[in-house]
């Protein structure tokens, strides 16, 4: 039919006439794919972007890399795997980035991992905990941050010393399920009774699961919360509403209580909540670490959470690698990352290759458990209860 063909031809012609990519002057591009809107964890995503912008600013102030300016290209994965996959495909195919950082949610990252391996561009993980990311032994996935099995093992001594019955509430994603499984196994091996309660990651009402917990006998003494989406603050809040807390202690799996909205949602009840992190005054920061902390605080007016250090390290490692091999080609970078020996912010970073998830993985993490002791307390002031 003439009309039909006409429409299609018109459509395709318009399609072809459109510019296929960004006409850029010569810059070296770094991809930052991170959640910037709900239901994703946009609060952390915003911090990731801030770290990236600071790092890129510093690099350009020193003259850029290989004589070119460094540019950070942002994309929002919304915390959704399908969106993240499309975003990263675009980043690599259209923007031609040298590497991708800033990836956050495990469920998104696992899907993206397949893409970067296929499209041969390195992706660095600073706080994505799923074991699978490195356990698949891809040449293109590198992790400076910790992973589930490692974290569970580091957390266990504190739990073992203080509690006999615990519960883990976890989101049914690569991160949550992986963490809960790892922790439960280790805990049960030590004779600690562990309840595992799953919930859908994007849930905004956790009462059913918490009520289920309330009906358990013997009652759990500690609740470990493995969440990244909105449930992070809702679980503690509703635990109080249900009447489980404060008799039952709460341990957040990572540093979200240092965010402003923790106090907004929990109010006074947030006092006494604990969280696990990898940084405290007891940890010695390197000169690079100190200078990062200072510049971040100066630019953004708050102290960076621990994962910011890891992300900063990653960007600097990429910069150093590019300088070392004198190329910004993603494949060459991936190849060269093996030889990384970088004086990072919290320790010297090398990537180990052994077995399981220890592949392209830095193993230099030290875990701390901190407790909020005052209303509206900030991270650095929280009390270190372990070690």
């Amino acid at each position, binding site marked *: 039919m003439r009309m039909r063909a006409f429409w299609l031809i018109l459509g395709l012609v318009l399609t072809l006439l459109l510019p296929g990519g960004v006409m850029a002057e010569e810059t070296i591009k770094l991809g930052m794919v991170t959640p910037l*809107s*709900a*239901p994703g964890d*946009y609060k952390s995503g915003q911090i990731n972007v801030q770290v990236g912008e600071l790092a890129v600013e510093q690099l350009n102030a020193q003259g850029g890399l290989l004589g070119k300016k460094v540019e950070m290209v942002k994309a929002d994965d*919304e915390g959704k795997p399908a969106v993240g996959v499309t975003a990263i495909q675009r980043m690599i195919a259209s923007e031609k980035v040298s590497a991708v950082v800033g990836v956050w949610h495990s469920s998104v990252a696992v899907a993206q991992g397949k893409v970067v391996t296929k499209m041969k561009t390195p992706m660095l993980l600073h706080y994505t905990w799923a074991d699978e990311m490195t356990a698949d032994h891809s040449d293109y996935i590198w992790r400076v941050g910790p992973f589930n099995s490692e974290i569970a093992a580091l957390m266990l001594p504190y739990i073992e010393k203080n509690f006999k019955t615990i519960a883990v509430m976890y989101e049914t994603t690569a991160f949550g399920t992986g963490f809960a499984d790892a922790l439960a196994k280790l805990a049960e091996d030590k004779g600690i009774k562990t309840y595992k*309660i*799953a*919930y*859908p990651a994007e849930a*905004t*009402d956790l*009462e*059913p*699961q918490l*009520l*289920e917990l*309330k*009906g358990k006998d013997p009652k759990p003494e500690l609740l470990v919360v493995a969440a990244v989406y*909105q449930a992070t603050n*809702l679980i503690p809040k509703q635990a109080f*509403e249900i*009447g489980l807390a404060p008799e039952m202690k709460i341990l957040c799996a990572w540093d979200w209580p240092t965010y402003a*909205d923790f106090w*907004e*949602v929990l*109010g006074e009840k947030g006092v006494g909540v604990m969280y696990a992190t990898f940084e405290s005054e007891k940890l010695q920061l390197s000169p690079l670490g100190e200078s990062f902390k200072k510049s971040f605080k100066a630019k953004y007016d708050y102290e960076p959470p621990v994962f910011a250090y890891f992300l900063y390290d990653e960007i600097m490692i990429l910069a150093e690698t590019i300088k070392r091999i004198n190329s910004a080609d993603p494949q060459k970078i991936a190849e060269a990352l093996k030889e990384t020996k970088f004086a990072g912010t919290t320790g010297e970073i090398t990537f180990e290759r052994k077995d399981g998830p220890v592949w392209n993985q830095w193993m230099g993490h030290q875990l701390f458990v901190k407790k909020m002791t005052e209303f509206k307390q900030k991270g650095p002031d929280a009390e270190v209860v372990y070690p």
Partner: protein
Amino acid sequence: MFLELVIRGTAIGLVYALMGIGLMLLHGVMRIINFAHGEFYMIGGYMAYYSMTLLNLPFYLAIPAAMIITFFLGALVEKLLLSPIHTKKIEKPMDYTLIMTFGLLLFFRQLATLVFGPFFRKPPDYLPADFHILGVKLSGSMVLAGLVSALIVFALAVFIHRTWRGRAWRAITQSNPGARISGVDIGRESWIACGTACALAAAAGAVVAPIFTLSPHVGGPPLAKSYEVLAIGGLGSIAGSVVAGVILGVAETLGAFYISSAYRDAIGFVLMAIFLLFRPQGLFGQKV
């Protein structure tokens, strides 16, 4: 434990009833199905939030404010987009409203994402204290939600049975031509009813905002629950909807505990499907 579940279920059930009644009003007076009902719940929540944070209104003013704003929004929507179904001769009014209200659902959600931002918001707790009812600890917000819902439903029931307008609406529900002959202006009653229905949804949203937090996508589950209440309770009886709402709330809470917490939302859907298939008039409804 059982008692606690029942009490919690009742509290949330009253909120469900509030939403369901709004929908029932819409269906009775206008004979339409409305997919955007949940979006008015969402808008009501945001209006309450902004009333409290931007205008510093206390909660007992913020909730009515949300209701009033949404009333006018609902009326506007009716006048502009839905009135053709009684004025023009639309071939298939059912299809028309289905698609139209669905389009509205998408439209409002996207608009909310753009205007309010794709972030989670939470208004300050309305009643920071905790209450003990029959030995069960309930948060102040939860108790307030149940009470306010019950209050509004009661007020509505009085309105429907005692005022002229309420009688006109009941007349329209029973027989559209009959009401017309009796002098009722269908066009005008339609937009007022629509506005009222939306205001009811907004009240539900406002009252529950501090408990569940707000985001542009928060309207999905309430929409579903409204229809579930309608299916279980049937059309035409406010008291019936209240009972249906409580049944739904309690069934969900009990089911979540004794069967599976993950499938809590599915319970409502299964109940709805069962009623639709085997007893379409619901427990208390009139004709189908």
